[in-house]
């Protein structure tokens, strides 16, 4: 996927400024940056929820920036949301059935320990369970590029490793992952490369260890 010269202006403020990057097939890229740096806006642009932009987005050589979200999803853009990514009023099982895919739902739910909650409304799940359910659902769709927006936000510390294992299992040679995360250690364990976003621009890019040790990162986060 190639993102080129993306400019987004919301309410008179420039949120993303000529943002460009490329993510290779099978690559896992982390995006870090302080609050308000434009990370979630970037995901909204890629998945089509913000379309008033300039710049281009290419997936497998095809321009997708003018497509609505559901067509981008059909083209292979998957997304795990920061919050509210499951249908709380549907049951846990219905959250998977809605995909319309013929897969063994029971086995998938068993794998994430939610088989006994299959008939319960998904709203009763804990933050970590909701995230696991969303990850499983994303897996069913087999997207070419999966956007994960702060997968550990609001999740109990003991669930973080479970989520990391699940995200690792989503990696494949044909699937690229783009992960927004504040937990630098968490992202370092998962990603091949990290982009640092600050005030709507990519200010740093490199291997996780290299970025983590850079004093400029401390400056961005702590001033």
């Amino acid at each position, binding site marked *: 996927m190639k993102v080129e010269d993306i400019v987004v202006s919301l309410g008179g403020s420039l949120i993303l400024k000529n943002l460009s990057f490329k993510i290779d097939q099978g690559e896992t890229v982390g995006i870090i940056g302080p609050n308000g740096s434009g990370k979630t806006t970037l995901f909204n642009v890629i998945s089509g929820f913000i379309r008033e932009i300039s710049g281009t987005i290419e997936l497998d050589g095809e321009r997708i920036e003018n497509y609505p979200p*559901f067509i981008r*999803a059909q083209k292979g853009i998957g997304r795990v*949301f920061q919050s*509210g990514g499951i249908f709380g*009023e*549907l049951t846990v099982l*219905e959250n998977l*059935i*809605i995909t*319309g895919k013929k897969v063994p739902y029971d086995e998938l739910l068993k794998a994430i320990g939610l088989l006994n909650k299959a008939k319960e409304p998904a709203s009763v799940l804990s933050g970590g369970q909701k995230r696991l359910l969303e990850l499983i659902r994303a897996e069913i769709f087999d997207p070419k590029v999966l956007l994960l927006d702060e997968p550990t936000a609001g999740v109990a510390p003991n669930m973080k490793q479970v989520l990391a294992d699940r995200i690792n299992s989503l990696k494949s040679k044909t699937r690229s992952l783009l992960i927004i995360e504040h937990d630098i250690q968490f992202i370092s364990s998962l990603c091949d490369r990290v982009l640092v976003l600050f005030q709507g621009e990519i200010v740093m890019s490199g291997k996780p260890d290299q970025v983590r040790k850079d004093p400029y990162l401390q400056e961005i986060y702590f001033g």
Partner: protein
Amino acid sequence: MTNYLLHLGSLLFIYILLAQSLNLILGAGKLFSLGHVALFGIGSYVTAIGAVDYGLDQWSLIFLSGVTSSVFASVIVFTSGRLKEEYFAVATLAFHYVVQSVFINFRTVTRGVMGIPGIPSLYDTSLDMFIFIFLVSTAGLLILKLVFNSRLTLLLRGLADSEIVASSLKIDPKIVRLKAFVISGFFCGVSGSLFAYYLKYIDPSSFALSEIMLLVTIVLIGRPGSFFGTVIASFFVILLPEAIRFVEFLQNYTSILGSLRQLIYSLILFFAIYLTREKIFGRVI
């Protein structure tokens, strides 16, 4: 007395089918449609005009009424499908008034407020007519039950829950709503057709806005989205006001019975909306 019960039964099954059509949209889809009585009216007028002016048979007209209402239901989606909550309700309210205005003013076709009398009787006895309505309505309800159990309804519920999440799962909101409205509109038209055949006379007053309150009350009391809840609520809402007629101490106050029924509807509707407000509007209002 038997004829009276058959009369109630006939109306009941017409309204169950109509309320269930609304339940698909309002209950499962959380789309507050105020246009369903207009769709019901369109079905009635198609049958009345087709039977009186063109002498078409009942099966063709029941189908044609359903299809015509479906077409108009799809117009609602194309013009208002992207509107949310109360804005959608206002848009469908406008649709209702436009359609009712056509019923009243397009006199060369609808005969305006004079209405259309002389819709031919399908059967000689009330019992036969009741059986006919019962069978057509039940067939419609069985199809709607399949729709309620289908993925379409699941998608509709998902969209009602979160359109953003649904869109990220390859679901096209407009197509899902269009399919639901086409199906719902079809059965509004069918129930409208049965209504015209049953009464043998229709005029615009049968499709006044107050009728939608009756349907909304049924859906809300029956628990929005619940198929069997709507069936049971239809019995309750349609038959309860009739039961009041037989309350002995009210016999001397026949002049206030009409307004008493309105009052009961209003109270039921108030409490039903109060208790189900989060299910309908997705937030406390």
